[in-house]
């Protein structure tokens, strides 16, 4: 992926595991099925003749619209996952994400209060984990999903070490 306009110069991003695309797609598929099932209720009722008064165009719009939107979201997922990246610099950690709404964040090691490593059932099945950094600011929403477990453990240790070496107060 070419460097985007707001990416700092000379940064080579470490991308998250491609397996995370599968994880995201499974989650997306489950959510799509649920959403379609719920929003297609009017259409089913209409076609079954239980609720003939329901406007047909609305019933069709709900179902088809949901399907179109969900498919579009699904098509974006691979690119979105590939847009996630992080880079360790001497003083700080850079994290980027987003396709349409892009964000590049810099978290100084000395500002980190703690590091979370979280694993959900899906991520565990694929040997992945999420690393989340916390600073004293609640706005620091610095999570890196889809990191291979070994890399996550290394990152956690590395970040803790560097955080201690450069620890600053508040």
């Amino acid at each position, binding site marked *: 992926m070419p460097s985007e306009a707001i990416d700092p110069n000379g940064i080579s991003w470490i991308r998250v595991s491609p397996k995370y695309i599968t994880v995201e797609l499974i989650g997306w598929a489950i959510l799509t099925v649920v959403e379609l099932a719920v929003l297609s209720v009017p259409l089913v009722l209409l076609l079954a003749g239980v609720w003939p008064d329901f406007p047909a165009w609305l019933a069709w719009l709900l179902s088809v619209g949901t399907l179109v939107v969900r498919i579009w979201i699904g098509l974006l997922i691979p690119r979105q996952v590939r847009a996630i990246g992080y880079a360790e610099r001497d003083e700080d950690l850079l994290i980027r994400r987003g396709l349409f709404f892009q964000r590049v964040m810099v978290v100084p090691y000395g500002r980190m*209060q703690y590091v979370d490593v979280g694993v959900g059932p899906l991520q565990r099945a694929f040997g992945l984990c999420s690393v989340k950094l916390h600073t004293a600011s609640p706005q620091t929403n610095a999570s890196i999903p889809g990191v291979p477990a070994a890399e996550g453990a290394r990152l956690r240790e590395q970040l803790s070490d560097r955080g201690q070496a450069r620890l600053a107060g508040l």
Partner: protein
Amino acid sequence: MTIPGSTGQDPLNGQDPLHGRGPDASGAVVPASQGVPLTPDTTGTWHRVHPVSPLVRGWIALAAIAYFFGRDWFEAVFRGDELWGLTGGRAFWTVLIVAVVVLLLVAGFFLSWWFTRYQVTDDHVRVNSGVLFRQHRQARLDRVQAIDVIQPLLARIFGLAELKFEVADAGESAVRLAYLPLASAQELRATILARAAGLTSAPGHAQEPVPEAPEQQILAVPGSRIVGAALLSGTTVFLGIMLTAAGVSTIVFDAAFGPALLVPAAFGVAAGYWSTFSTGYNFRAAVSPDGIRLRYGLLETRAQTVPPGRVQAVEIMQSPLWRFKGWYRMRVNVAGYGVSTENSGARTTLLPVGTQQEVMQMLALVLPDPGTEDPFTVFTAGLDGIAAPKQHDGDASDGCFVTSPRRVRWLSWLTWRRNGFAVTGTALLARSGRLWRSLAVVPHERTQSIALHQGPLARRLRVADLRLHTTTGPVTPVVYQIDADTARRLFDEQAARAAAARRRSLPERWLEARPEPMPEPGPEPSSGLEAATGRLEGQHGPQQQVGPQPEEEIRHGGQH
């Protein structure tokens, strides 16, 4: 619970944390040879809060009981009826029930008072509380973010005060001591601040008058201006809209507003005026070596102390109505205060209403070194400045502020000349808003993390937003819609500047002579804010080692 050698351990007047020091010592210059002027509590010495405290805290319960039983009887007496529950054989039982309830309450009060103990040692303040579910709490003194001395109305009548000790968890107060006699609370505050400042450990500083750091009043907001500020607030706008709506509805639709709508609205308006007035009343700001001290309040008075280097971000705002008078409002992010919804955010207000000159004075307090040759010009441009409409495409520039490029004028036609940023040697200034003007100031060494945001529209226009993350609070500094290349450069430079500023930032104990060496990496990682505390423990541990350190020492930790 007491230790031999300590005096004044009588629990009934055990509020005096400075019992090792005679009253004559207050205000006196302590000879340097004495070294440590304050006697810290040893591990066995505990104090209790004032015995009346549970009453002051639980007066609502007592008032409810009095109301419940009193009203009927009072009315009955008034009407000359026979007293319910006091006639015939029921009198005995009624009195008994009331007596038992009152006794239980008093016993509860007594137990809660008896089991609440506190001590202030060299490094920590500890509070034990709870009868059945015991709670032992301990906070490091040098992690103090702010100390409040609060006097609610009833406490004022008794001459009591509550002491709130805030550390950086943005939630509940770390330590609440309610209530102490006012003098004791103030003394305790001075003690805590002196120890947090590192006075006890630095014999060279023992000449400082310790009991209460000398303070100098910077400004006092006159009552008339508070009234004016309330009248020129959003409440008035709301009132105007309501009255207009009522008038239009009456004249045009011939349907007068019912009291169902007007009474709540009137209450809302009155409450709005009242909260502005009562919290801003008698607002005074002072400065002392212990930091900024703010005092205010009509019924409930507060004295807030924010030690140096604890202000994470400042915002100066001006609403359209205030522009006529040239008034501004200042709010701060302090780690211990959080969002502070109580008192409509009075706690995070640095200046409820002030002139430009007063704003500059307060800015000088929170940012002693503005990091620029001509701070007045820079900050004035931040408060009122606006870039010229004619400028060539590319970087717009308004004196010291870099504003949005001309090409975004279609997107934000009102604010594009106002949105911008300026960088001084010590802080980043982010200004925004044309009607509701705002200037956010974030010291470099207080920047937590930085993020660049860019949406699809902004990408077309080659602009980006830069957000500075600070601790929880009312200020969220954002530099809106600056040229993408400029934003990226600022992002990089700001990260470097923040890192550099952190290295030379003030020590946590603000009166200690020099920055301390960075701590050795601790043996094991821990979590939470306690992690920072825990690691810093090693840093501050033996206080005697504090002294002149070679400059190289400061970078010590960085080698690792």
